[in-house]
């Protein structure tokens, strides 16, 4: 009916719009308009605008969200169209890519058809959908339609047969897949009926090009026995079914997780561009004049924290990688986000007045469920190791664990509500500046007899070696500190330590939620660093590395901070350390990525390069490695808490190491070293597995370890005990 006369093309409303007034075409316009209206109606009915009121009422501080808009836009475009983060998981990534590109291609095709039939032709009488362009478009739509079907079938296979235990199961989850499949299949059947009726006849000008619709052509074989009338009758019914399905899909977006099609790209645009997942800044002056600390009311979150819950479509990648979930603890990062969303809807019932205005209700008047305890269980809040696996995995750039730290802050600083065993940790940090509560005057005892330069005696040094509490007080990790100073001295590094002037870095206090104690510790260190004009710092512990490098900036302490693996890697590559003695009995070595070194600071290669340079034993990888590494269980202050729910995280990781075929686990973090050493003992694997810190092996290979060269690594101090 287009009347263009083009032969290599097709009639757009074939069999739908007859001669004369195009009633059906007008009806279609009405239906499309209705679908869009129903979409917005659906948003209202599903509580979207109510949630937006809560989101815009949120008062919490946040980081920059719209700076460098152009960069943000490109980042978003690459992420959305290139699936940068989604493809991190190959199976889910590929089927989403298939569905996504099928969807995009079919939307593009539909838009072109719309412009041709409803804009260009009626106004200018130009028909561009012909010839090679038409054939190309036809092929394009057919191929991507098929790709989308393959994607949907893969998704169905996962939901019905693979059934990962972290996958959410709501009613809409299966419905969505069948819905999309039905739209795609009816689309191909409608096409096939048209092809059977109009192109299979050899006299048709389109007949030589019939395979430019490969799927439609193939399906058409099913209808080869049907009469033209039957084809036309079936076509009309299915065409309207397909159209109503597609329009229904638009409406359904408003009611379901499909809204992520809109919200997730927006959230990617708004992602934090800080080097670390931002934990809400508490300016020091706040402790003088604020009345409440941390978060226990929904509206104390930032608008972006709450907006995150809109972008979450429950994919569960954060659950899949969560060490707490994987050891049967009551924490699923996705559910934390979803619980906040549900809480937002529930709280709106109290917060909205008759005019639909959102009011923040004072604590004493509020009678609804509490955010802490009712919406999010306390055990959930304490289960998190802040390993960052959730944030790393989330394709929507949602910040899951920082929301829990806000809740911990309220519990700790306002309510003194924390696991009982943490009391001694806080007191130790307050009184002796270390979580072990060992006398602060013994902080430098590990260095006795090693002739380690003290900054107070030396005056200045290129590098401050910030040992940290583990290296200074924990017997296992003192050996690592000893190895490091031997290496530094042998390499001629100009360094010094602070000795008893050093204080706890405060990371555990911060992540447990005691920002007050953290800042007191941090400020004491910053003052000491500044008094000695320190500019470059080497840390032994990735936790100290992270707070010194990033978080101290908030308190006015800007230093160049290195983890020791960065320094050792450089010294080895520069030839300043010669690894002349291959170490015996290491067997295959596997490297356990510390969360705070890896995910937090992207240091993955340096430790591996050092291990390769040892020329002792081959390097094998565990199932979870690099950005997907599995936590040892000690982060987020969990080092200091009993692990009495579920199974033990350190044991799971140790088992992964055993499964890798390694005989030696190497760490570059004192917490990981402790946790994995304990894992080996607890699982009685000492015959098959041993743990070392990388620094110990470097010292051995460099021949600097005469005192600790014995197989068991016993040093004199232990003998003295």
């Amino acid at each position, binding site marked *: 009916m287009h009347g263009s006369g083009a032969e290599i093309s097709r009639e757009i409303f074939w069999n739908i719009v007859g001669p004369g007034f195009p009633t059906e075409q007008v009806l279609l316009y009405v239906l499309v308009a209705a679908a869009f209206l129903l979409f917005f109606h659906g948003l209202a009915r599903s509580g979207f605008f109510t949630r937006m009121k809560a989101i815009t009422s949120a008062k919490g501080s946040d980081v920059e969200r719209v700076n460098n808009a152009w960069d943000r836009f490109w980042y978003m475009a690459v992420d959305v169209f290139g699936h940068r983060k989604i493809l991190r998981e190959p199976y889910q990534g590929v089927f989403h890519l298939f569905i996504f590109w099928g969807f995009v291609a079919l939307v593009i095709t539909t838009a072109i058809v719309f412009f041709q039939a409803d804009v260009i032709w009626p106004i200018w009488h130009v028909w561009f959908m012909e010839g090679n362009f038409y054939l190309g478009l036809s092929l394009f739509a057919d191929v991507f339609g098929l790709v989308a079907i393959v994607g949907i079938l893969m998704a169905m296979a996962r939901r019905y047969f693979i059934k990962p235990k972290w996958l959410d199961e709501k009613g809409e989850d299966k419905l969505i897949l069948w819905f999309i499949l039905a739209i795609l299949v009816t689309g191909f059947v409608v096409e096939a009926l048209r092809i059977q009726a109009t192109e299979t006849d050899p006299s048709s000008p389109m007949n030589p090009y019939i395979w430019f619709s490969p799927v439609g052509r193939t399906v058409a074989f099913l209808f080869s026995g049907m009469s033209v009338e039957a084809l036309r009758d079936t076509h009309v019914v299915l065409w309207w079914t397909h159209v109503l399905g597609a329009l229904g899909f638009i409406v359904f977006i408003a009611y379901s997780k499909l809204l992520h099609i809109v919200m997730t790209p927006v959230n990617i645009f708004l992602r934090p561009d800080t080097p670390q997942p931002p934990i809400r800044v508490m300016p020091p002056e706040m*402790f*003088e004049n604020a*009345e*409440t*600390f941390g978060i226990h009311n929904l509206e104390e979150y930032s608008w972006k924290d709450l907006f995150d819950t809109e972008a979450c479509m429950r994919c569960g990648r954060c659950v899949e990688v969560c060490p707490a979930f994987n050891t049967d603890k009551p924490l699923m990062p996705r559910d934390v986000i979803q619980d906040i969303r549900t809480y937002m809807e529930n709280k709106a019932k109290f917060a909205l007045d008759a005019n639909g205005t959102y009011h923040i209700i004072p604590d004493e008047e509020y009678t609804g469920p509490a955010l802490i305890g009712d919406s999010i269980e306390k055990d959930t809040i304490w289960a998190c190791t802040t390993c960052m696996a959730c944030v790393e995995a989330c394709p929507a750039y949602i910040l899951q664990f920082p929301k829990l730290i806000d809740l911990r802050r309220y519990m700790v*600083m*306002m*309510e*003194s509500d*924390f696991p*009982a065993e943490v*009391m001694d940790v*806080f007191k130790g940090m307050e*009184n*002796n500046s270390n979580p072990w*509560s*060992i*006398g*602060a*005057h*013994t902080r430098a005892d590990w260095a006795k007899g090693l002739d380690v330069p003290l900054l107070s005696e030396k005056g200045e040094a290129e590098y401050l070696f910030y040992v940290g509490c583990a290296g200074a007080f924990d017997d296992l990790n003192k050996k690592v500190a000893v190895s490091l100073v031997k290496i530094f001295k042998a390499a001629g590094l100009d360094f010094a330590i602070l000795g008893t002037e050093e204080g706890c870095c405060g990371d555990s206090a911060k992540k447990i939620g005691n920002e*007050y104690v953290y800042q007191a510790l941090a400020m004491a260190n910053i003052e000491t660093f500044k008094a000695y004009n320190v500019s470059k710092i080497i840390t032994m512990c990735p936790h100290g590395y992270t707070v010194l490098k990033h978080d101290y900036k908030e308190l006015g302490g800007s230093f160049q901070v290195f983890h020791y693996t960065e320094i050792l890697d450089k010294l080895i590559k520069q030839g300043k350390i010669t690894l002349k003695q291959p170490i015996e009995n290491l067997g295959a070595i596997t490297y356990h990525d510390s969360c705070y070194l890896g995910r937090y600071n992207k240091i993955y290669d340096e430790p591996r390069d050092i291990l390769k340079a040892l020329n002792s034993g081959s390097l094998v990888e565990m199932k979870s490695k690099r950005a997907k590494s599995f936590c040892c269980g000690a982060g987020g202050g969990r080092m200091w808490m009993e692990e009495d729910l579920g199974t033990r995280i350190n044991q799971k990781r140790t088992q992964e190491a055993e499964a890798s075929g390694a005989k030696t686990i190497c760490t570059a973090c004192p917490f990981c070293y402790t946790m994995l050493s304990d894992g080996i003992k607890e699982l009685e694997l000492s015959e098959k597995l041993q743990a070392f810190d990388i620094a110990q092996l470097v010292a051995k290979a460099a021949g600097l370890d005469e005192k600790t060269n014995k197989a068991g690594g016993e040093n004199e101090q232990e*003998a*003295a*005990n």
Partner: protein
Amino acid sequence: MNTVVCVKQVPDTETLIKVQGAGIATEGIKWVMNPYDEFAVEEALQQKEKMKAGAVSIVSLGPARAIEAIRTGLAMGADTAVHINDAAYYDKADPYATAAALAAAVKGLQYDAIFLGKQAIDDDAAQVPAMLAEMLGIPVVTMVIKFEVAADKSKATVTREIEGGQAVVEVPLPAVFSAQKGLNEPRYASLPGIMKAKKKPVDVKTAADLGVSEGPKTVVKEMTLPPARQAGKVIAGDDAAAKAKELARILHEEVKIV
């Protein structure tokens, strides 16, 4: 219920102690509230919370630095405090002089019960609770691990730790109670508690203000640290039998225990 809690500021248990004269060098010491006094503060607060009435007053004898221990108690939730800030008196004070100063300060306060730690972990004298009770002319119950008070505040039923067991004691109020570990779990001061503590009233007095003139009855003449721990010894020998023989010789001849 109104309560008074007497607290002492002592060196942190992990701090390095150096003997100086007949006392210790105070330089570089990290000072904390006596841990047993924390149980006393906690119990007073719990009683106040349970009865939903009354006030908790902290009383402490010590030099200017003792205000930190007082503020710790106030941060935990105590309402007011008396600081007998008198370094000269404190330096010479023995348990008797301490009890005399505390008694004088307590006399000006309203109380149904007085709580103290069972002993201070620095001088370990454990005399003050009993002496204080005697000077105030009221009963004392020591080593308390459970405390319950009658609704009319006329008497308390308390559980004491005794050798190998427990005893339940009934005592009329007011009375003095000394807290033993196990009585409760002392709370961690909340941040608003710490902030509020800075503004709570502390009545600063000297011994002379309180009219206390009695001096100490005892004088410390000398203080010594325990001998430093000897390094361990690895017993050498060709085989297990030789090592065992050498071990037996050392235990017999050097250590003289077999």
